Structures are given as C-alpha cells and as structure tokens.
C-alpha cells in the first residue's frame, strides 16, 4: 500500500513537472510578452518584463486601428450568439423528429448527418451560393454558414439525448390538449436543458475560435472578427509583439471563462461519442 502511494507521488510529481514545462510555460510566455515594452517583447526572451506595462498595452490594443478590437469583439459576439441560437433551435427540432418518428428515411438522414461532419465544405462554391443570395460579406450570411456547419454535430448530441426523454410524456401532453408545436416548445424543450447547455457551450467555443470561416465568407475590415484581428495584427505590426500577445490574451479570455464555468458540459459534449463509438 505504501509503495503504491509513493509511486503515485513520484509519477504525479513527474507529470506535474512535465506539464509545467510543456503547457504552463508557453501560457506564461503569453502573459509576460503582453506586459512588456515593445523593445523588450521583440527579443522573444522568456524573462520578467523590465518594465511592467500590462495596462498601457491593454489600453493601446483597445485603441489601435480606431478601436478595431471593439468592433471585432462585437462582430464575434453577434456571430456566436446568432449562430448558436439558430443551431440549438434547428438541431433540437430536427433531432426530435429524427429520434421519435420511425421512417424508412432514417438511414438516409443518418448518412447525411455524418456527411456533414466528415465532408470538408467546398469553399468557392459556397461563396458563389452566398453571392447569389446577396449574403456574401454580410453578417446574416456568416451566421447561416456557421449554423449549417455546426448542425450535424448538434443534431447528433440532441438525438442521443432524446432517447432519455420518455415517449409517454408526449402522449400525456397531447391527451391534456397540447398542440404539436406547443408540445415541443413547452414540454420537451425545457427537459433538454442539460444537452442545450452542452451544445451552447461547445459550439460557442467553436464559432468564437473559427478563423477559416470568416476568412473566406466574411472578408473586409468592417466585418473583422477577433480571430481575423489576430491575423491582421501579426501581419502588420511585427515590431509590436507586446500588443500582439495582449490581443491573444484578450481573445483567450472568453473561452477560458466558458471552461471555468462549464467544464462539465464541455467534457460531456466532447466525450458523447466515446463510449458508444
């Protein structure tokens, strides 16, 4: 027993040491860089800032390029909220019918849901479709694109969960006089709260961190999202590493907050397929 305990200490201690070197040092580097003066930061050394300029850098980033970062945060916020809201409602509705209704189309629908997960989106043809609809370079167009790309995964999560909601509940609600739409929105939807939270948190992190989507379908500095500002920053101001890293730090905060408060839901979302495969 005692040997097992010392072993757990030795292995744990070793693992903690490795994790500090591999994971925490890079993260500390971001914070230190964000607090340095421009000269100090451009040396890229892992050192304590000669001059602690954290708040000056913060203000500088918030003011740079006529407050581009504010607009970017606003755009990312609208994009994330809009697309995740749509995803939740549409995926819950579709998942509900798919889980409840027996039909010969079941396998076909399954195939298409999986195709949505596997197949890489065709970039230029998507732009062509967006342009045909007058939605290219517009926020509504981008919201619909993110919604579409997130639908498959959300539907899978919802469908797995509907199995745990008893069918008798549907029958009882209908016998009590609820209409079909009301049955769904007032009886079923509130029961889905756990899986809805999971979908919201996981997809919010995905959409918020998405770079390729806005790069292709929402170009233009008015439409900047937080990820594309990072890219512009990296391209323009190579002599301002301190501001670049401050930007990285700012952009990391929303997912970090999500992880702290919702780590259980994030883990549930990611591992949902693990056991059943």
């Amino acid at each position: 027993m005692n040997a097992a305990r010392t072993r757990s200490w030795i292995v744990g201690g070793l693992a903690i040491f490795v994790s500090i070197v591999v994971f925490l040092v890079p993260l500390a580097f971001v914070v230190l860089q964000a607090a340095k003066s421009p000269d100090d930061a451009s040396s890229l050394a892992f050192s304590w800032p000669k001059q602690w300029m954290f708040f000056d850098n913060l203000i500088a980033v918030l003011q740079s390029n006529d407050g581009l970062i504010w607009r970017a945060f606003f755009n990312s916020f609208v994009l994330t909220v809009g697309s995740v809201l749509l995803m939740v409602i549409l995926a819950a509705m579709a998942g509900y019918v798919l889980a409840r209704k027996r039909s010969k189309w079941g396998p076909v629908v399954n195939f298409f849901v999986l195709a949505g997960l596997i197949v890489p989106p065709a970039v230029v043809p998507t732009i062509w479709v967006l342009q045909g609809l007058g939605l290219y370079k517009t926020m509504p167009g981008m919201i619909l694109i993110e919604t579409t790309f997130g639908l498959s995964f959300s539907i899978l999560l919802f469908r797995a969960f509907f199995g745990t909601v008893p069918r008798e509940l549907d029958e009882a609600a209908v016998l009590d006089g609820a209409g079909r739409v009301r049955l769904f929105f007032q009886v079923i939807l509130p029961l889905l709260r756990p899986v809805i939270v999971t979908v919201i948190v996981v997809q919010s992190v995905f959409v918020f961190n998405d770079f390729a989507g806005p790069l292709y379908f929402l170009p233009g500095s008015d439409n900047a999202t937080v990820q594309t500002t990072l890219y512009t920053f990296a391209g323009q101001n190579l002599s301002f590493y301190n501001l670049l890293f401050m930007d990285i730090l700012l952009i990391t905060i929303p997912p970090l907050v999500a992880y702290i408060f919702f780590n259980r839901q994030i883990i549930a979302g990611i591992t949902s397929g693990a056991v059943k495969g």
Partner: protein
Amino acid sequence: MSTANPTTTAQAADAIVQGGAERRTEQRRRKITSFYPTWFFIPALALYVIFFAIPTISSFYFSLTRWSLFDSQFIGFANYVQFFQDPQLYTSFIHTLIYAFLTSATKVVLGFLLALLLTGPVVGRGYLRAVVFFPVLLSTIGVGILFKSLLDPFHGMVNGVLGLFGLPQPGWFTDPNLALYTIAGVDIWKGVGIATLIFMAGIVAIPQEYFEAARIDGAGYRQILRRITIPLSRGATATVIILSLIGGLRSFEIIWATTGGGPGFTSDVIASVIYKQYQAGFYGLSTAGNVVLFLVVTIIMVPLSYVLNRKQVEL
C-alpha cells in the same frame, strides 16, 4: 375511395361497424406518430441543402471549369491535370496524408497514455486533467503565433534552452525538411487533450469488476492493460482515430498561422492550396483542390469507419 371517404351517414355508420376496434387503434396510433410534426426538420434541411449540399455537388462541375464566379468556361480535366502535374500543388497532397496520419497516430498513442495516467492513482490529477485539455479551447491562430515566437530559430526560447545544453538549434519553421513536422507537433500539443478526454471516458466506462477479477486471478499490470483496458476501450480508440484523421486531413488554420505553407511549398497541404488558389483568383483550380480533398477524405474515412465500427460489434 368510397369506403375511405363515405358520402352518406349510412355508409359511414356501416364502415365504423365493419372496421371495429382494429380501425380505432390504428387511428390512435396514427395520432401518436403525428405528434411529431415532420416540418420540424425542414429549416435544418433547408440550410443543409443551400449552404452545404448545393456547394458540394456544384463543386464537381465548377472544378472542371475556368471560373470567375460570374461566368464559367468548361475546360474538362485541365484543373486536375495541373493539380497533379505542378509539383507546387501535388506535394500538398502528399503532405496532407503525412500530416494527417502522423498527427492522428501520435494523438492515439499519446492520448491513450495520458488517459491511463489520468485515470490512475496520481497526485494532482484534477490539475493535470485541466492543463492537458486547456489548449483545445485556445484560438488556433493564437497558438500558431505563440509557437512561432517560442520556436524562432534565433531568438526563440526553445533554441535558447537547446543552446545551453550544446544541442543543435534547428530552424523549426524555416527548415524545409522540418516545417511540416513542427506544425504537426504544434497540432498535437493543441489537440491531444480531446483524445485524452475521449480515452478517459472510455476507460472509466469499463466495469471495475473486470479489473478486480483479473487482479484476483493474478494478472499483472501489463496483462490487465493488454487483455482488458486496450481491447475494451476500442470504441474510444475508433472515435479518436476518426476525429483526429478528419481534423488532420482538413487542417488549415494552424498551418496558415505558422508557415503559410512555406518555406517554399514544403508545408502546403490541400486545404492551404485551396486558399492560395482562391486568393490568386483561380477559382476553378481552387475548387478542384476542394474536390480532391473531398475524395481523399471520403476514400479514407468511409471504409475506415466501417471497419472500426464492425470490429466494435464483434466485440
């Protein structure tokens, strides 16, 4: 028609008497299945068709054209010929395969080992779990910029430390023979947390009795690992392989944030070629790249997921 839609009350009454209880239960059953409004999946289907199915299907046609978004001129397989003749383009095909299999294999092995560690008796388990998973949530572009600084050949911290020990200081992102593998390493750093998490869920789901029984029968740690843990976390293994391969084959952001496909074209993958050709205005060629990627992903993933899922059923 006349029985289903009776015209007189006499006929209707007749039908009810004849149909009897059987018809009534059938009606009830129909009412229950009709709780579920079929139109509920139409909004999702509409988005799927407009923004995913139509672009995917039309990409096959547009890849055969010289295309400016406004008009397209059919040129047969010229784009594909160019894709597989131009070394700047076809190397991306090879790089994609190397990158995907390398990152996937490493994530499977490393993720499994980490999951073993983090489900076992270890000090600081909660902290370790959190820290391994955290990079998954970081912005990919941010991670790319971070590692570009850390692995800078002259000023970077990593080479600084290597120099202290008198070790060689490679140009991680600037050496043509190394760049692709360095990016793969960064990808693994960022993504191994997902693999670990999935393996952990798989290992935790194995009933404890199996381990106890094996231990009572005198099985050692290795035997338990080989006979119980590995075979019974096959579902998790399948998920990790599938997810990481799909991610690896489609990988774009991390490459774009670190090398942009360079130096030269030595770390270009299909996804980055698609972007470059799009940027250059060669929409037909870009779309041909998209179709190639589509075919690569389908040809690898469909049989693989079939095999992986079948094995699981046998078990």
